[in-house]
């Protein structure tokens, strides 16, 4: 009897947002709340009808420290400050694969801290922010950002060139930051460091090691025939589908397996892009006529022709190849390929791409990997024959481990999951015929997977590998500097750490909320504490030359200055900000959520 009574007395607390449930009302009635008059009943009804709002609680999705130590530290710093202003924070730690799945494919997150691949050219913002991509899976607009008038700004920077474009980009950035529709907070561009061993190969510093060119044209000493690189990301050993958004970081390995018409030559002396699979580009107003190099082949021996190029653009726009009622665009390369509106084949080697973009964005469209038509066609057929439903960005063709048959300088020999990926030189590659292009100089390229930057450095130091392919986490830099037989190589960086909001849902749909959260981050301080200064804080996600003066970092964030100083959050100020944005606190200092 006593237990029963205790049970009745001990009310289950209501769910944080749940208001009063039918059950508890029934229980209350049963427990003897006498509801004698209608007036009282109305009061009950009116009172409990008022939804019970609890503390705002949100989760930060991030990868564990093994995958990205800085990311976790940033997330923790953010969480600490969110807790300080009365928000309940939980972490949703996921492996890099699951992290990208949740964010890019399933859109199942509140906010996340991670690394954005960024872009040399600000046109990557088109993919990141265009409203038409808000519903799609992939790196295109994972935030769900959709704002009237913004698509036009994105189109404008895409269709213009030169100063006009520079102005358009500046205007875009201003609009993005002024009234804070900003669906993400860029934190900093980390410096890119890699360790290399100069004893077996020379020429490491000629090209960016984050691109395919970095691994070509190296000069072997002592007749070295095998290049071994150490990576910290095991995903290439599991899946080499160039379109699988969740499996790809920079996609350097994939870039060695596949060719594109032009190749980014960041850090090289040959400008932004250089001709690659294309022998010649003939630019016209809104079109470019491409001439392919002679006698290019895929790894399976098939000739690479204009047909494959045309197919690639068609396929990226609709991976279902017309088999579904609606196009099912690729989760990667989507925004770039969208600049190409039409492809006209002239003969085996020439074709004309019509673009609805200026020169800069059109060039970017030429960096997509060229896929062998026959291979992918049969992939699509197999998948549809098995009655797989074609769900954009998540069906098998764009996420499964499709045979890695490209035309790139290396072909896949073998891989063992979580350990190695072995590539061998593709003897038919055009770089081996053309003298002025850097080609594969080794018979074999091996990627070994290490659990973290320190281990990767160790592998290089011990001579088991020649270079680290992944850029080093900053905490490992000191270690790298200590070794005498390895060199630390710095490359320009374009990827950036950021906090992404799922703006589809409240409270993240509220720009005031986002801006205050942005202001909880002391970016300068974080760069010092987390990155040991090996990063550049930023207010906008584009590289230096595109940043308008008024948005340039000037010792503090010109857009969302930190609420506090010297890393100390001014909790009162932050709380006041939330309050003046219409949020409320309870006596326990908890920020309340009511929706």
């Amino acid at each position, binding site marked *: 009897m006593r237990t029963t009574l205790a049970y009745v007395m001990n009310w289950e607390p209501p769910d944080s947002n749940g208001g009063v449930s039918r059950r508890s009302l029934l229980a209350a009635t049963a427990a003897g709340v006498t509801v004698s008059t209608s007036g009282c009943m109305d009061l*009950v*009804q009116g009172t409990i009808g008022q939804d019970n709002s609890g503390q705002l609680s949100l989760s930060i999705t991030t990868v564990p420290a093994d995958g990205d130590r800085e990311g976790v530290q940033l997330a923790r710093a953010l969480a600490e400050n969110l807790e300080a202003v009365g928000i309940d924070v939980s972490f949703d730690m996921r492996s890099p694969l699951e992290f990208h799945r949740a964010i890019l494919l399933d859109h199942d997150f509140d906010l996340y801290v991670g690394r954005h691949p960024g872009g040399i050219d600000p046109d990557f913002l088109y993919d990141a922010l265009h409203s038409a991509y808000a519903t799609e899976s992939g790196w295109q607009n994972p935030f769900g950002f959709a704002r009237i008038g913004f698509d036009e700004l994105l189109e404008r920077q895409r269709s213009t060139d030169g100063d006009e474009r520079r102005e358009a980009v500046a205007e875009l950035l201003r609009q993005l930051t002024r009234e804070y529709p900003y669906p993400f907070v860029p934190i900093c561009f980390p410096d890119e460091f890699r360790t290399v061993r100069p004893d077996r190969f020379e020429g490491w510093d000629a090209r960016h090691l984050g691109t395919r060119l970095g691994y070509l044209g190296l000069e072997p000493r002592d007749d070295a025939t095998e290049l071994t690189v150490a990576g910290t990301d095991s995903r290439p050993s599991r899946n080499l589908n160039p379109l699988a958004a969740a499996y790809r970081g920079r996609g350097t390995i994939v870039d060695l397996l596949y060719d594109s018409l032009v190749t980014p030559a960041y850090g090289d002396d040959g400008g932004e892009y250089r001709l690659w699979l294309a022998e010649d580009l003939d630019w016209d107003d809104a079109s470019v006529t491409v001439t392919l190099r002679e006698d290019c082949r895929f790894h399976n021996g098939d000739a690479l022709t204009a047909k494959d190029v045309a197919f690639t653009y068609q396929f990226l726009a609709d991976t279902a190849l017309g088999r579904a009622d609606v196009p099912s665009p690729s989760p990667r390369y989507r925004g770039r390929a969208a600049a190409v509106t039409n492809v006209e084949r002239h003969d085996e080697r020439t074709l004309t791409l019509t673009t609805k973009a200026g020169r800069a964005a059109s060039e970017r469209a030429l960096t997509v990997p060229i896929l062998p038509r026959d291979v992918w066609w049969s992939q699509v057929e197999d998948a549809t024959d098995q009655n797989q439903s074609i769900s954009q960005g998540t069906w098998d063709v764009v996420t499964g481990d499709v045979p890695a048959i490209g035309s790139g300088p290396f072909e896949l020999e073998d891989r063992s999951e979580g350990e190695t990926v072995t590539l061998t030189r593709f003897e038919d590659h055009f770089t081996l015929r053309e003298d002025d292009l850097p080609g594969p100089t080794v018979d074999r390229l091996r990627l070994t997977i290490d659990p973290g930057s320190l281990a990767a450095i160790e592998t290089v130091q011990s001579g088991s590998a020649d270079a680290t392919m992944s850029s080093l986490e900053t905490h490992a830099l000191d270690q790298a500097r200590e070794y005498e037989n390895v060199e630390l190589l710095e490359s320009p960086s374009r990827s950036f750490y950021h906090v992404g909001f799922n703006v589809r849902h409240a409270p993240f749909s509220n720009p005031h909320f986002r801006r205050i959260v942005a202001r909880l981050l002391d970016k300068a301080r974080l760069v010092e504490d987390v990155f040991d200064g090996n990063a550049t804080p930023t207010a906008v996600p584009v590289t230096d030359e595109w940043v308008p003066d008024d948005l340039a970092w000037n010792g503090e964030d010109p857009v969302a200055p930190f609420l506090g100083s010297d890393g100390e959050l001014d909790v009162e100020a932050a709380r006041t900000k939330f309050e003046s944005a219409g949020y409320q606190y309870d006596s326990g200092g908890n920020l309340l959520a009511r929706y």
Partner: protein
Amino acid sequence: MLAQLLAQVAAVVGVLLAISIGVFVGQSRLSTTRVEWRSRVRDAAPIAVVLVLVLLFNRTARETLPSLSWSIGWNLTSTFYEIEGQTVLLFQEYATPELTAYFSYVYVYGYVFVLIFPVVAYFALSDTRPLRELLTAYTLNYTLGLLCYVLVIAYGPRNWIPDLVETTMLYNQYPQYQELTGEVNHNTNVFPSLHTSLSATVAMFAYRTRDVYPKWVPVATLLAASVAVSTMYLAIHWAIDVTAGLCLGAISVVLSRRLVGRWSLSEEFDDWWPSLRRE
């Protein structure tokens, strides 16, 4: 206006009762009743008291229950609509002003009559069992119906698709009746149709007492069917409500048969109401 309306209903039903007592009950039964009424009242009193209590509760709870419903009830209007769609519109196809008038009168006057007459008719029988069973069935109808009303929130077709049922909607044609029914019922209480369940109950009793009142059977059946159809024709109830009403009616009849006589309340009654016994 309400008083006027009530008077009107009382008058019409009174006339109907007078006629039907003459036709169905007959002079001889009336004279026995004049002799035996005390014992019959005594027999039927307990259940009559319960029924009155239930009705009073219904009346006072009328204000409270809707709020309670909103707190705990299931809002099923759209579910009903999804299940049966525009079934009730079937009747719209045959709508004529005469038919509308007929069903409106049946819904208001016919219903009241069909409920009251059996009470009178069974009271005129020496065997009080039918009367007690009938009153029990009424009580069950109200009680179970009320329970459903609390648990289920549903609006009738007229509240959902007013445009489609415009021509026959009772309250469009005879707005005054809305005040009358508003006195008895709340607009979220449509599941089940108590009009249907009570009329069906009466019809079932009529069938069971066919030996005593053979002529009443066809009349009761026709009226009950008309009432059931009228609720849909006038866009007050969904077909689902009417079906549920029929089920409720059946359940009440079956239950009443089992319950009556199981606990002989009247015997206990005897002890503290001896004055009636003397007769």
